[in-house]
Every structure is written in structure tokens, then in C-alpha cells.
């Protein structure tokens, strides 16, 4: 099986879907000759032509609204945002039109919006955000956040196949940092199934995206101390694998919810609240949350490091849980 970076896995998966399904097309700024801001679609226009790999004007609303219209006519648009941050310019179209259309008219809106997200490289307040929590609150949208090349590929195929609007958050900081084995043949990964990134029985960390790797490093450190931490990678937030999370909570009795998005009202609150409500009797300690502080993402490396949850923060929190 070839080893691919996370971004290669995304690119390969998208190409594969476009080859097998004529209805799939790509719409976004600079996706054509330039191959997209992160080069995910490099070479695509040569293979699929200018209409299936379409450079759009600087118009997030027209891109997402246009994708919705094309989907209603039977195509399978994959829209690209240059940075997840810019999806704020199409918020209304996702929330008002795409998310509610099936509920109202029973016409499915099978669109995928690819959203390069996350910090870690001094992108500053507008090129580093993780806006998945905002969308996870909107009924009608599905939220996908792969953490590995293997999941990135399988979940993209599932996203394109899904008959609903899917927001596919790809973490920029993983693009070239994470490699892994990825089958060449097509495969899908069902939504709503968490992945056990690491096994353990002493505590469970529930997380997703780049934080899976942060948690993993922290768990490795603690393994030396004889404290075995399970890491559950949710992979999709909507739907999220509540059953699997509760199972782990029951077994481990201590739980840390970790995410890179800001804390207040982040999706971690939903997970923690659910655990507190449904596994109350199984908890040996309070459900702890670690997340970014409630500020915009700062630019300066000194500040950004303080903003992003670090391995040390996770280690410390797990040690406190261990001692509880």
C-alpha cells in the first residue's frame, strides 16, 4: 500500500471520485490552472476540462449557492474554500438554503464544501480558524474532520456520495506533516463511527482533527508513567459516535474532551454535556475540556503557541485526571 501525505490522500480521492462519477465537479477560486490554494486539484483541469474544474470569481456565496443549484439538478459539486475562514461569507447559503432544503422540499442537496482549516503556522486570525462548531449546531449539515490520510480519502468518498450538504474540514497543519498507508482502490468510511486511534483503559480523550496527534503524543508520554489513555478520533461531528464515546467513558470512567476550536460553545461542550447527562453514574471524575481560549487566533508565534492546545496541556490535564 502506498504511503501518502494527508493532502495527497485528499487529492487522490477527489480525482478518483471524478473519474468514476461524471456528476462530480469542482468549483472554487483558482482551482484550475493554479490547482487550488493548496494544490489539491493540481492537474485536474487538464484531465477533466475547464467546466468540471471551474475557476469561480471571488464569490463564496455564488460558489456555495451555485453548488446547491447544481446539486438540485443532479450534479455532485465539490466546492473549495481557499481557507475555511472564508466560509463565513457563505454562512447564509449553508444555513438558510442548503441545510433546510431537504426538510422543506424533500429535494436532497448533495454538496461537499472542502474547508482547509486550523492553525499552527502563523496564519493569523483569518487563515487559521476551526469553524466546525458553528456549523455543527445547524441541523441539516454534516461535519467531517479527518485526522489521517486513510480517513481523509475514505471520508471524502463518503462525503461526495452522501445526499446531504457535507462540510469537509481538512486540517492544513496535517497536509504535509502526516503520512500513512492509503489503499489505491476506492473505499468509503461510514459517517458517525469513531476510530480508536490508541487503546487504553485509564482515561479516554475524545477529539478530532489535528488534536488527535497532539493527544497521541501526550498519551505516549503518559504510557511511561503507567497510565494508558484511549484516544477516540470522532472523525465526523455530525453525526457523532455517541454510542462509542459512552462505551469508552463507561470503561475508562475518566474523560478529556479536546479540540482546537475555541472553548465557549465549542462542540466539545456538546460532547461533555452529553457524557455528563448520559454517563453520569460511570464517571469517576469531572469531564474535562481542553480547547483554545476564547480569542481570535493570534498571528505571532509566541501568541499562537499559547492559543493552540499543546501536548503539555494535555499531559497536565490527564495527570490531574489520573490523580483525581
Amino acid at each position, binding site marked *: 500500500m502506498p504511503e501518502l501525505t494527508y493532502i495527497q490522500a485528499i487529492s487522490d480521492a477527489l480525482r478518483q471520485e471524478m473519474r468514476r462519477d461524471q456528476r462530480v465537479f469542482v468549483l472554487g477560486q483558482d482551482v484550475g490552472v493554479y490547482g487550488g490554494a493548496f494544490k489539491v486539484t493540481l492537474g485536474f483541469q487538464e484531465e477533466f476540462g475547464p467546466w468540471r474544474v471551474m475557476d469561480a470569481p471571488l464569490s463564496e456565496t*455564488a460558489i*456555495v*449557492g*451555485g453548488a446547491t443549484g447544481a*446539486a*438540485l439538478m443532479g450534479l455532485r459539486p465539490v466546492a473549495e474554500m481557499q481557507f475555511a475562514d472564508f466560509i463565513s461569507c457563505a454562512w447564509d447559503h449553508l444555513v438558510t438554503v442548503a441545510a433546510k432544503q431537504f426538510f422543506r422540499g424533500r429535494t436532497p442537496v448533495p454538496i461537499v464544501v472542502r474547508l482547509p482549516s486550523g492553525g499552527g503556522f502563523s496564519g493569523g486570525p483569518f487563515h487559521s480558524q476551526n469553524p466546525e462548531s458553528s456549523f455543527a449546531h445547524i*441541523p441539516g449539515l454534516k461535519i467531517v474532520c479527518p485526522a489521517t490520510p486513510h480517513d481523509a480519502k475514505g471520508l471524502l468518498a463518503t462525503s461526495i456520495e452522501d445526499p446531504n450538504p457535507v462540510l469537509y474540514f481538512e486540517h492544513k497543519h496535517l497536509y504535509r506533516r502526516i503520512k500513512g498507508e492509503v489503499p489505491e482502490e476506492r473505499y468509503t468510511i461510514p459517517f458517525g463511527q469513531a476510530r480508536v486511534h490508541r487503546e487504553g483503559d485509564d482515561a479516554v480523550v475524545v477529539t478530532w482533527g489535528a488534536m488527535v496527534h497532539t493527544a497521541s503524543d501526550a498519551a505516549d508520554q503518559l504510557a511511561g508513567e503507567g497510565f494508558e489513555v484511549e484516544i477516540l478520533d470522532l472523525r465526523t461531528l455530525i453525526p457523532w459516535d455517541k454510542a462509542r464515546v459512552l462505551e469508552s467513558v463507561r470503561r475508562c470512567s475518566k474523560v478529556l474532551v479536546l479540540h482546537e476550536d475555541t472553548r465557549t460553545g465549542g462542540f466539545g461542550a456538546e460532547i461533555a454535556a452529553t457524557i455528563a447527562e448520559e454517563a453520569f453514574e460511570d464517571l469517576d471524575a469531572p469531564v474535562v475540556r481542553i480547547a483554545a481560549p476564547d480569542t481570535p487566533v493570534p498571528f505571532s508565534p509566541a501568541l499562537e503557541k499559547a492559543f493552540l492546545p499543546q501536548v503539555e496541556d494535555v499531559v497536565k490535564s490527564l495527570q490531574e485526571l489520573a490523580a483525581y
Partner: protein
Amino acid sequence: MAVREAEPVGSLQEVKEAGLDREDLLGIYRHMLITRAIEERGHILYRQGKIPGSFYTGRGNEAAAVGVATAMGPNDVGTPLHRDMGVHITRGVEPWRIIAQYMGREGGPTRGRDGNVHMAAPELGLHPMVSHLPAMLPVAVGMALAFKIRGDRRVALGWFGEGSAARGDAHESMNMAGVRQLPVVFICDNNQWAYSTPTYLGYPIEHVADRAAAYGFDGVVVDGTDVLAVYREAKAAIEKARQGGGPTLIECLTLRMEGHAVHDDAFYVPKEMFEQWAAQDPIERFRTWLRSNADMTDDEEDQITSVVKRLLNDALERAEESPLPDPSGLEQGVYASAEDLDTPHHK
């Protein structure tokens, strides 16, 4: 590419050349009557407390809506708005389903999930509006994009009001359509008021259609009370788009003949304005034309009137028979499953 003001329509001969025979003309008249009748009936039902929420009508816009819809091809699609009941009627949405929609019944196109004219008939090429105006314009452009990508000879129509022309969605969609010369026709229902806002507080130029020049396509202003002129302009624009000629912006000038919605008495509209436009009521205007140009007889008129009346009575009866939706299904209807894609428009 300056904006063009469309001529009024003259003789039967001219109209025949535009592709409408006498049957078509009587059909158009019937559609306009049904449109008005449904909204008048809705008004009564609302006052009787049988329609929950608010209630909007398109009185004065019947010719614009029916004229445009008549010009659409069978496989064309559109996203009509709250003044465009005539589009639904012309495309064949059954009146009883509309009344059921008003009443929040299971038999309405949204099964009580949404109200008013927020309704879909995808099998007839109509997709439901959202309240947020004019968010359906980018959607219509996306439909046109799908046609272009697939090489379908189909056209998408997107409606908007002169008030909502101010929103970014209008701009982004027209710009993208212009850049890509997509087969889309933009229809502006210019009824001179956006809620209480007069045109001069909404846009600083003479015609909304003037803006077509900013997007590299043609604009035309047509008297929205002249159903045949509307039809002619819409037909020309739709066929142009179908031939690859790109978008057109058609502005249908009318007056909103009632308040913004049923709660609004429109005190801010000058009385003379209502009087002036009442004198060119689109239905009466077309009736007169049919009598003098197409020899519509008393018998024919009576027959149409009674057909419409019967239709409405049946519709009300059937709508009232339709049950209120069952709340137990509410949460299941948010996400589509694979089978839901198994419809003609998703092939």
C-alpha cells in the same frame, strides 16, 4: 447594451408569431384568474383563522408571473418568489396543494414544514424559495451551471424583487452568470415597494435592468401588467439563453396592489398610485384585449370563470380533508438518505 423598454403588445397576429394560439391565450387568462382566485381565497381563509402565520399575495403581479412561466420550456426550471403564485399555477401545481400548504397540512408541498408560497414542485421544475431574499438567485445560477456542464439545452429562471436587488446575492450571481455566459434569465418583479421602502431608497438609478450592463448582458424593462409583452420578452430571453446567448435581466414593472403582507395596510403608498395602477389591472387588461383581439365570447368567459370557481371550491375541500402533519415524523425529515436521490431531477 443599454436597457431596452419593451413595446406593448398589439394584435392577435403579432402574438401568433410569438408562438401562442388562441387556446394558449385562453389558458393564460385562466391561469391568471386561478392565481388571483387562490390568493383571494387565501385572504379570506386567513381572516377566518384557517391559515396560521402570515400571508402574502402577488396581486398586480399575475401577468408578470404567468407571462414568464408560459414562456418556459417543459424542462426549464425556476425559483419563483412570494409574488409569483402565477408561476406555480402555470407550471401545473394543483390548487388544493397550495391551499393545503397555506394551512400547514400534510398535503401541501412542504407537508407543513414551511408555509406561504415557500413551496417546491421539483417534478415541475420549481424549487422552493427561502425567505432570505434573493438567496435563490445563486441557486438558479448553479442550476444553469449544471445545464452548461452537462450540455443540456435547458434554462434556469431566477426571480427577485427590486428591493432585494440591493443584496450581495444578486450581484454575485449575476456576475458569475455573466462571466460564464450561463443559460439563466433573471426576472425582477419590480412592484415599486420593498415592504414600506420606495424604489429611490432601495437603488439610486432609474431601472434595475440598467444593472445588466454591469454584468455584460442585456436588460429590458417590460410593463408587468401586459401579459403578452412579458411573455414575448421572456420567450426571447429564454430562447437566447438556450441557444448559448447568455443571461438576460428582465424587469417587470408593476405595483404591489396590497400591503406587504396581510397585516400591512400600505398607508405609505400614495392613494393616487394605487388608483393609477388599478386602472391597468393586468387581468382586466388582458380580458379587454382578448375580447377585442381574440373575440373571447361571453360564453367562454363564463365558462372559464365557473371552471375556476369549481377548481377553488374543490381545492379548499380537498385541502381541508388533508390532515395536519404528524409530529412524530419531524426529526426524521432533516437528512436525506440515498433513496431520496432516486428522483428524475437527480439522474
